[in-house]
């Protein structure tokens, strides 16, 4: 009970601290707000939002099928992407081989490659079978590939709708013993296309079991591309400042030691291990409070999609444990609060910057392999990676490695920190 009393007392003190609100919430949200404006967040509901032209590599491997009058769905899709209406959005280049298109993306000559499979027409017009249209995209980009994916989904929906309309009409006429002529089917399909065109954005992404737009798991996020960018920044900021909060909360142990309140607690009939335990509870409670508020507020203000609740809870809990344990550990190495300036302001800032370097490189093309590994040399990098995976649609399986690393680090850092503090105070 006293353990919680100490923790709650410190949480109340933190909540009353302007410093806590400034660095725990104000600055991370402010940073995201700046990016929000930079990416045109304010004008997202206005007309005339200008998006950069996205270079697209298209490979049409589709083979026309004689039974469908040699009509090629792949050709229709390729033409759609190249049509005049999209020329402000997409800059389409055709390739003969899928390999070449992927290499164009790897060389950052294209933001996304659209690889239309050989059995595309057979699957679109046929009544059975399954195929996959591949989108191979630059993982650091979200807006351009998102636009391409949206266009393709619209196209597939129209096809699926037309096909259903024709099938329903054919069955209805057959049931009445009437034959259907080729011209009638075309008319039905055209009428459906006209209706689908009039409904515009109300069409939902492809639901057909025959066709799917296949994306890697970490690229499968749904929703607003702007929110995706802001989400990555928010995750980085949250990790960066959660580590500071863990350290600053742990610093209250040193502050209380210097201010005399820790000694005073030791004169009360409360075990020293309970008192220190209460201080550790404080650290965890404060970081939990910060992380929960940041996730909720950023979702509300910026519409950030944090991913599925369960993986998010696992990643956020791992972040809390790691940030708190790291704070306890690093503070246990300090002799007094006069040393916190250089350690928190210097060492932790550098570590935080390294940890979120992948966020800084977003939009700068495919980073070299070394830059993908660099963030993982610091604990913050693993936390950013875990949140990034969850936001990208990753499930618990995708989180195994980062969560295991974060959990292991938390245990080690926590026990080393506790050992140091016990040696000093107990």
């Amino acid at each position, binding site marked *: *009970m*006293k353990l919680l*009393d100490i923790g709650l*007392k410190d949480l*109340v*003190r933190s909540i*009353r*601290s302007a410093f806590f609100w400034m660095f725990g919430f104000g600055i991370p949200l402010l940073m995201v707000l700046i990016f929000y404006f930079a990416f045109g967040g304010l004008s997202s509901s206005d007309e005339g939002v200008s998006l950069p032209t996205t270079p697209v590599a298209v490979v049409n491997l589709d083979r026309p099928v004689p039974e469908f009058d040699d009509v090629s769905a792949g050709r229709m899709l390729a033409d759609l992407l190249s049509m005049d209406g999209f020329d402000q959005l997409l800059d389409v280049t055709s390739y003969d081989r899928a390999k070449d298109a992927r290499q164009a993306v790897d060389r950052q000559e294209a933001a996304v490659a659209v690889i239309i499979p050989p059995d595309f027409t057979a699957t679109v017009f046929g009544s059975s079978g399954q195929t996959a249209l591949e989108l191979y995209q630059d993982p650091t980009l979200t807006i351009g590939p998102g636009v391409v994916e949206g266009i393709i989904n619209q196209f597939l929906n129209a096809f699926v709708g037309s096909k259903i309309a024709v099938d329903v009409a054919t069955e209805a006429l057959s049931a009445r013993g009437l034959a259907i002529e080729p011209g009638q089917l075309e008319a039905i399909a055209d009428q459906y296309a006209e209706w689908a065109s009039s409904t515009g954005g109300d069409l939902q992404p492809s639901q057909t079991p025959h066709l799917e737009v296949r994306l890697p798991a970490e690229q499968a996020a749904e929703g607003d591309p702007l929110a995706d960018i802001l989400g990555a920044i928010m995750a980085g900021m949250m990790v960066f400042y959660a580590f500071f909060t863990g350290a600053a909360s742990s610093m209250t142990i040193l502050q209380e030691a210097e*201010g*005399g*309140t820790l*000694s*005073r*607690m*030791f*004169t*009360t*009939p*409360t075990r020293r291990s309970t008192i220190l335990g209460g201080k550790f509870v404080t650290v965890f409670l404060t970081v939990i409070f910060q992380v929960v508020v940041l996730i909720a507020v950023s979702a509300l203000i910026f519409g950030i999609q944090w991913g599925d609740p369960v993986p998010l809870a696992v990643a956020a809990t791992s972040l809390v444990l790691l940030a708190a344990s790291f704070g306890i550990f690093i503070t246990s190495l300090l002799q007094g609060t006069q040393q916190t300036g250089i350690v928190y302001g210097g060492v932790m800032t550098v570590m935080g910057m390294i940890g979120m370097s992948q966020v800084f490189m977003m939009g700068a093309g495919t980073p070299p392999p070394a830059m993908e590994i660099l963030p993982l040399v610091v604990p913050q990098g693993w936390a950013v990676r875990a949140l990034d995976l969850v936001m990208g649609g990753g499930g618990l399986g995708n989180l195994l490695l980062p969560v295991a690393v974060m959990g292991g680090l938390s245990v080690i850092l926590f026990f080393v920190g506790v050992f140091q503090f016990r040696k000093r105070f107990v």
Partner: protein
Amino acid sequence: METHAIQVQDLHKDYGEVYAVKGVDFNVYAGETFSLLGPNGAGKTTVISMIACLLEPTKGEAWVMGHSVRKEPMGVKRAMGVVPQEIALYEDLSAQENLNFWGKMYGLRGQVLKERVEGVLELVALTDRRDGRVGKFSGGMKRRLNIGIALLHQPDVIIMDEPTVGIDPQSRRNILDRVKLLNRQGATVFYTTHYMEEAQELSDHIAIMDHGEIIAYGTHEELVQIVGQLDRITLTINADSAQVVDQWRAVDGVSQVVAEDGTLELLVDDSNLVLPRLFEVATGAGLRITSVEIQEPNLETVFLHLTGRALRD
């Protein structure tokens, strides 16, 4: 029959080669006010820290209400309330929030806690400021609250480590009156100070401490008897005192001369007889005495007599 609230036997504390406390023995009777008097650095806070279970003695033992500081620290802590020398409060919490928190640390809960908090707020005259942030309080108010916290669990023994340091005379008077009140209400008070007049006013027994040792123990009257009828003369002169110190030491009736910070402290048999001789010597040396103060024997005189130094240092 008198019982001991605190017993201290051969208490030592050293840090390697550095001795902070060297074999201290004394008893504090239940219901009395006991003062540990000594200059800064004498070792008073170290003794208190060992009694309060904050520091483990290098050697020796102490008991509070029969509980050993080594073997039963929880019993010791339940029996006493400690008022630390520094103000140990949470400035970003209100007076009531501070009391609530510290009350819980003493194991108080629910209605009992509520009543004790009310009682202490009244005792330290902060009822109307209960919701005020402690950071906005005056030094005197903080000192009162600092004391109040130690009273929440109604301890048998209250340990006060220089509770009047750095406050204005009015607040100091207020605190001394409250210490007397607590003692009248039955609490045993263990009080440390380097102010002779506080020890003299409050205490039933006084121990004088210097360089980690108890150099005198007794009632005020018993201690003053140590110096007999010696008067204490404090002088200032208009030049370097070194010129006359040795000559004054040679004057009949002068038992001690200490020069510190531009003033001279002398212990003399009879100031009426000695003073004219001191003026003669000073005049002969071409010096002028600019102020003279004569005091009857008191604890300052005792300390000067025993250590050759003034207590204020």
